[in-house]
């Protein structure tokens, strides 16, 4: 079994993102599974960034522990990560300014835990690419050569990527790639402390970030309107949809602030568009009044919230799960809503589709709760199955043909609390939507009986909504002595921790909750009650999932694992913590 980690590190602006993404994509195309987590600082130049690409022949879901190889674009990265290397791991870096390398058995020069391969990347890049900026491509060439993996995949990727910039640029990139490989082959003759053999099968898989999986889920759900205001880590969703406007026939509006964004979404939804916004916790805090407006007016909206550490500005580019209770209960008074907290990019795609479909069917707001780890990581996923995607029409105009003029009642009382929708602009009918309490016609009304009935109508949807959500995911089976209970992006680390513990013969299983609101009370209680121990695992300091679990089911978590340092859970460390609490 292969499970190795190749890390690209350096300053912001040194092409760390591009290099790690190209590397991962080439490996996915050649049949590997990858998981890349960008460890980025909130700055555009300088600093220290690194992306660890975990590569395996099985599906991988979480951030790696130690690195097998490091492509260090600056000396700081070498210093920073020496301690992160596995014994004998390889470090590819520029020759140091005052060399005093010790020879090492593998042919490179020994450098504590790692073996250093000093490659003059900048000089080679200038020679073959005409600019130092292609040093990352030289580094990639060297890295691949040292793993013994064929460079064909990366070559064709470079061709695709730079085709638009002209033949010369393609030639330079290919030249740099080859020169990097040639340099190490000549000097160290193909020593491979970390091998990545050619895979026999190359199934069609995608390499996609959580953000892009959500954006694709929105496209597949017929999104026609997005308004947003940039906020890490959600911004790529807005940027992606902006680029897709013409092709997909949708409108992406960059609003002047998040308050404007949610209210534009409400206006578009009223007009009849499938509409969404995406933000992080701070932006959502500004949107909360609008959330209530959508609920009161019974207008479907989809809100994606990619959590980062907070409060206030917090850690702009780091992860946390501290907004669970906020998003499940935000706004004045009471109304039904959906909250989905997918665990993987694959689940995020389908959960986004459920958010659109169910928001439309029940005419309520739906929230997709992501976080920096899910949103920013690059995941290897099977091609999304469009046959599994639900996409239905929100309107039945035919119903209104031939009806008397002005007979439409936006808030007509019905058995299931759902009143038929109509788009403004329908001949002869008027559509009245409002955030003030109202009667069936959509006029403001302060009568207490009307209030009780109208509030009841909205709240009555909740039961049917609860039946419409998906069951929790159980891994690898439903019953075990110890149940690890988690939500959102904790899925990956928890799942792998369960694997580690089961390999040590512990009776442990995971229950992961994506569809959080309405909370599937009976199902969760049914899964958790028989366990000897329930351990909640979540990325916040007060145990919000445990609080929600207790509130909804009365079940008290026996143990909690909490993390709030802005970094994702690591499977190995988590397995140790869970193991200690199992006893």
């Amino acid at each position, binding site marked *: 079994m292969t499970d190795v980690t190749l890390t690209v590190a350096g300053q912001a602006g040194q092409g760390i993102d591009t290099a790690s993404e190209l590397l991962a994509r080439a490996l996915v195309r050649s049949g590997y599974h990858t998981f890349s987590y960008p460890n980025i600082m909130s700055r555009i130049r300088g600093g220290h960034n690194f992306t660890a690409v975990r590569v395996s022949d099985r599906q991988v879901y979480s951030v790696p522990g130690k690195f097998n190889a490091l492509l260090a674009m600056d000396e700081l990265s070498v210093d920073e990560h020496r301690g992160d290397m596995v014994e004998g791991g390889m470090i590819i870096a520029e020759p140091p300014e005052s060399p005093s390398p010790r020879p090492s058995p593998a042919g490179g020069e020994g450098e504590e835990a790692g073996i250093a391969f000093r490659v003059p990347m900048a000089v080679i890049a200038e020679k073959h690419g005409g600019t130092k900026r292609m040093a990352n491509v030289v580094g990639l060439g060297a890295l691949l050569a040292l793993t013994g993996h064929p460079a064909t995949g990366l070559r064709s990727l470079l061709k695709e990527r730079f085709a638009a910039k002209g033949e010369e640029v393609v030639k330079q990139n290919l030249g740099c790639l080859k020169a990097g490989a040639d340099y190490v082959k000549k000097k160290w003759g193909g020593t491979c402390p970390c091998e990545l053999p050619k895979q026999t099968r190359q199934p*069609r*898989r*995608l390499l996609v970030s959580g953000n*892009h999986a959500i954006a*694709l889920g929105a*496209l*597949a759900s017929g999104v*026609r*309107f997005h*308004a947003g205001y940039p906020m890490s880590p959600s911004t790529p969703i807005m940027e992606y949809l902006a680029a*897709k*406007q*013409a*092709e*997909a*026939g*949708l*409108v992406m*509006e960059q*609003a*002047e*602030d998040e*308050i*404007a*964004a949610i*209210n*534009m*979404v*409400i*206006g*578009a*939804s*009223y*007009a*009849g*568009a*499938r*509409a969404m916004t995406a933000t992080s916790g701070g932006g959502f805090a500004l949107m909360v009044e*609008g959330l209530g407006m959508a609920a009161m007016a019974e207008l479907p909206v989809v809100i994606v919230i990619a959590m980062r550490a907070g409060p206030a500005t917090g850690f702009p580019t780091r992860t946390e799960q501290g907004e669970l209770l906020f998003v499940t209960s935000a706004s004045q008074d009471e109304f039904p809503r959906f909250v989905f907290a997918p665990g993987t990019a694959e689940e995020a795609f389908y959960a986004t589709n459920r958010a659109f479909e169910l928001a439309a069917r029940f005419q309520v707001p739906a929230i997709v709760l992501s976080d920096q780890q899910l949103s920013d990581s690059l995941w290897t996923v099977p*091609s*999304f199955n*469009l046959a599994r995607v639900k996409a*239905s*029409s*929100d*309107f039945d105009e035919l119903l209104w043909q031939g009806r008397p003029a002005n007979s439409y009642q936006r808030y007509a009382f019905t058995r299931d609390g759902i009143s038929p929708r109509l*788009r*403004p*602009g329908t*001949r*002869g009918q*008027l*559509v*009245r*939507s*409002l*955030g*003030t309490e109202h009667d069936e016609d959509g*006029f*403001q009304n302060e009568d207490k009986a009307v209030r009780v009935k109208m509030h009841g109508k909205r709240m009555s949807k909740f039961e049917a909504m609860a039946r419409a959500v998906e069951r929790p995911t159980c891994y690898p089976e439903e019953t075990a002595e110890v149940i690890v209970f988690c939500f959102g992006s904790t899925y990956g680390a928890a799942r792998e921790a369960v694997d580690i513990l089961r390999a040590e013969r512990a009776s442990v299983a995971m229950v992961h909750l994506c569809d959080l609101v309405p909370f599937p009370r009976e199902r969760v209680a049914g899964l958790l009650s028989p366990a000897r121990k329930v351990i909640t695992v979540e990325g916040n300091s007060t145990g919000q999932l445990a609080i929600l679990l207790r509130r909804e089911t009365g079940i008290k978590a026996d143990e909690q694992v909490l993390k709030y340092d802005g970094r994702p859970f690591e499977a190995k460390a988590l397995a140790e913590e869970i193991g200690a609490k199992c006893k």
Partner: protein
Amino acid sequence: MAESTAWSTNAEVTWCPGCGNFGILTALRQALAAARLEPWQVVVVGGIGQAGKVAQYIGANFLHGLHGRAIPHALGVKLANPELKVIAVGGDGDMYGEGGNHLLHAFRRNPDIVCLAHNNGVYGLTKGQAAPTSSLGFTTKHREAGTHMPAFNPLAAGLAMGGSFIARGFSGDTKHLARLIGEALGHRGFGFIDILQPCVTYNHVNTAEWYRKRVYDLEVESHSPLDADAARARILEWPSEEEDVEIPIGVFYRSRRPAYETCGRPGQAVTGFAFDIEVVKKAMGEFR
């Protein structure tokens, strides 16, 4: 063509007797009746306050939303369905206070939306606090020292932000106001009208009488709305702290700019359900 009676509703009008809002409602109904529009083609988006209630009093589609958010609501409607005639209505608290940022950017964007800001110099619905347009020193029941800020000049802000239709009306001259609204409805862009509106209950400074003595019609002075310099000079005449000031009403400035919803947009309604599976397949393929 719909008669002006067709533009009313059964909702009870809850304004104080003598309120300037009645004049604005009348003028808006007249303008709509004259504009050869059908009620189902029109969406009135209301803010929250006495002014925003207009949404429920006009017999058209309406979205009656939140305090300060009439403009983003209206923009969402317009971008989603450019065929609808969209009118955003709110008070000076709505448009210049709570939603001031939206107004600045609406001038810049220039969507084909009519924007009516009922300027009564006070927060009516919350019982008489100072508004952004209250004059310097305006006292309220609980703040006898008065405001320490000069009044906001929305027209100056509009001109600075590239507004393409900048006008002021007076609720006491419904004929003139109806004509102004008609012009704004015909303007392909952001048709902004600041409307002087006496509040008989809470604003005892800017009364109907006070306005009547001071307003004059720009047209009578043969002002050219195409002349930005002349517009700037007229716009800066008022608000002013001088006692014997005159207040111009009419169209101060007008220019031709493309309507926002036509700029780099699908150009048709994006309402209703429609999507192309081939587009999604291709999009997925780009992540190979």
